[in-house]
């Protein structure tokens, strides 16, 4: 079964510059610091491939911020297995697909969260969430990553949940794209 939320259609085609990186779970003992390291590497890689009219400093930062936030979620919520990052750049559009595995309970909670997220204006919801986090001493601060991407970076985001056998959990593909300038 496949369930989609948000924008899950890729714009970049076969002519795009593409790059695929797999973070293998076992030998790497995947952990938090891989997020920053990986996102900085991909940001640097594509900022050097940007054409005229794109500010490489802004491109490097925006790509790195976007990948870092989505990878942080992937590392935080993953249910074993590798994390695969597909990235591409064509003209001014940078796109990623990050694939990881989560358990069914996490998938269900995340889907509820996404439904609420996609119904609202992200800038408004961002401020609302910040105020809620400030009031709640137990808040983990999570939930701002996707909202800052949508509100501050005008990123387009989408999620696809694929499940076949319950024992294998759910394969989550996160789609994100940025218009570089």
């Amino acid at each position: 079964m496949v369930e989609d939320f948000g924008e899950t259609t890729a714009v970049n085609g076969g002519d795009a510059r593409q790059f695929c990186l797999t973070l293998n779970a076992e030998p790497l003992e995947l952990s938090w610091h891989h997020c920053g390291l990986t996102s900085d590497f991909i940001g640097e890689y594509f900022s050097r491939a940007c054409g005229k009219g794109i500010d490489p400093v802004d491109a490097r930062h925006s790509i790195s911020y976007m990948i870092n936030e989505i990878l942080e979620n992937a590392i935080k919520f993953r249910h074993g297995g590798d994390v695969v990052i597909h990235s591409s750049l064509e003209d001014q559009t940078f796109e990623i697909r990050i694939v990881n595995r989560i358990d069914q309970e996490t998938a269900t909670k995340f889907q509820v969260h996404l439904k609420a997220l996609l119904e609202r204006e992200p800038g408004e919801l961002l401020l609302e969430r910040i105020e809620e986090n400030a009031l709640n001493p137990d808040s983990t601060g999570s939930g701002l990553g996707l909202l800052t991407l949508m509100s501050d970076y005008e990123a387009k985001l989408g999620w696809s949940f694929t499940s076949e056998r319950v024992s294998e959990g759910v394969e989550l593909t996160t789609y994100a794209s940025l218009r570089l300038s």
Partner: protein
Amino acid sequence: MEISTNDYRVWTEGSDIHYEGTMRLSGTDAYAPILEIMNSVLASKPELITMDLTSLEFLNSSGINLLAKFTIEIRKQPEVGVRVLGSKSIPWQSKSLRNLQRLHPALELTIS
């Protein structure tokens, strides 16, 4: 007061709080020692608190939550002013710092 690691440094000079480097900590708990330093400045009830971010190259969304939470704490004390200094050459600051002003319109934001 100062917290210093290989990735970042946060320190105070009077009521000025300086941030430097790359902060990508894993959540509210990980940022708690930094919030403690910031809250100790607020506890002294200065006329003006300056958050100098001009050398903070990268901040993840949990860190943005930290700055926002502190801004809300300052907002509760109208006698304490706040000024945030940012840099145009660090892209996240032009994109995300305006949210602090939306939370607390009296906050003075300078990105130069």
